[in-house]
């Protein structure tokens, strides 16, 4: 049931990389990758949020949602609340990060702009929590899974932002400048990541 830690790590970072293989978290991936500095900031925020949210959600799932209580005589099982609880936890974590960032590094807060609160709706974060539940990971494994998939997200984002900074200097045909060439490059990158399939 629980694959060992190594396969989770390689699996989450390279083989089924959240952005380039599972295509989760594309909107911040495209939105924030204009400059490497903002990409690093975003990666930091996402790693922090995903790791903590995987930990908290797996704890809540293990000790509350998957249990069945007997309250006033009837059997109760709250697993159907799973998505709602996950989203609430992620949203509050993001709010926490936003406040801390606004206080301690306003330039990064300015640079990330709308994409910082958007981490709440970032399907990569919710995806990590959901996937670790589906895969039946324990608390430790799902935290590692959350952390590694965040690292995968960060790797793809930094790689992609350095590519976009180089393309910023290229004479890309006018209609394709900016996001369009970004999407095409991301497509080729995803194709390259398929090379790692079957690794794990």
């Amino acid at each position, binding site marked *: 049931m629980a694959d060992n830690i190594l396969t989770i790590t390689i699996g989450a970072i390279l083989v089924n990389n959240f952005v380039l293989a599972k295509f989760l978290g594309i909107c911040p991936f495209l939105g924030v990758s204009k400059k490497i500095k903002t990409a690093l900031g975003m990666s930091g925020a996402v790693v922090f949020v995903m790791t903590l949210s995987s930990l908290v959600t797996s704890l809540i799932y293990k000790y509350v949602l998957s249990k069945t209580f007997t309250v006033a005589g009837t059997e109760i099982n709250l697993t159907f609340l799973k998505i709602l609880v996950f989203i609430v936890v992620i949203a509050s974590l993001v709010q926490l990060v936003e406040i801390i960032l606004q206080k301690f590094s306003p330039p990064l807060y300015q640079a990330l702009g709308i994409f910082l609160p958007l981490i709440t709706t970032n399907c990569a974060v919710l995806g990590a929590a959901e996937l670790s539940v589906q895969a039946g990971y324990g608390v430790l494994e799902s935290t590692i899974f959350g952390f590694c998939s965040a690292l995968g997200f960060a790797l793809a984002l930094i790689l992609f932002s350095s*590519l976009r900074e180089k393309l910023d200097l*290229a004479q*890309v045909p006018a209609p394709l400048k900016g996001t369009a060439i970004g999407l095409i490059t991301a497509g080729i990158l995803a194709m*390259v990541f398929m090379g790692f399939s079957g690794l794990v």
Partner: protein
Amino acid sequence: MSEVETPTIKLPDPTLLIVSNSPHIRGGETISKIMVHVLVALAPAVAAAIYFFGLAALEVMLLCTFGCIAVEEIWNKCAGRKPTWKDGSAALTGLLLAMNLSAGAPWWICLLGALLAIGLGKQIFGGLGFNPFNPALVARVALLIGFPSFMTSWVAPQAGKFMACDALTGATPLGAQGAAVASLHDLFIGNVGGCLGETSAIALIIGGVYLLIKKLIKWQVPAAFIGTVVLISAVVHLVNPEMTQPPLYHILAGGLLIGAFFMATDMVTSPMTANGALIFGFGCGLITSVIRIWGGYPEGVSFSILFMNALTPLIDRSTIGKPFGYIRVKKESE
């Protein structure tokens, strides 16, 4: 010294004198010369491919090369740019693409490959010099994932017979298990199945040495690339021989030689600084070995080079190093 007034002293006409920034003289290098030299370096591999796979190989090469030139010219015409086939880069991409296809590849695969290589791989980023990924490999990987059956229909080599063109699906040395493993001798001269450019090791080595002598490629890339593959395959082979073939086999088989000498050293998509080239080569070698030994695909060279192409901007940024006379700036001006 009495100055003899020669009647016809002609002075230059000032209105025709060209004004430009210095320097006013230049070395003889041009882009087309470089590309021609690389094409010459590919000649032995082309000859070997035709020798082993017959006219079918020649047909694939011609289709790819002229397909690429045609796509580039059409793109230039639509984009309103002047024709650029003279610099030879489209022809080179075409030939390298052909080297990645098997002799049995149908004609439409070649043309589709040309479209992908030049269109998606190069012109969409702005033409020569701006593409982050090696165009020929973009096309190969796209075709490999899109049409796995066509791309892996290897033709068994018929040394010397030119008209043999029946597609026998003999496995490639890398994919072969157990008895079908080719002998080192066959691998060396090229009497094995596989892509046009991947078979004859001797031809590729000749081409590679030519490139090194002519200083058209940075030696760090092939050295680090092949060195890493040898190192990892040697270690893994020692630990558990069934896992993988011995290092020498790894070098001669598959696309390692053509990858290391012609694909990874493509100037546009590899790092400019010397230590950047070392990191690039090491990365390519590492990923190739990982994919070959543990990965799903038998051949990892294309994926590794493309992955390192994606890393090149990052490598360039971090290996810029400090300019001459930087050491004292921190004390004095900051």
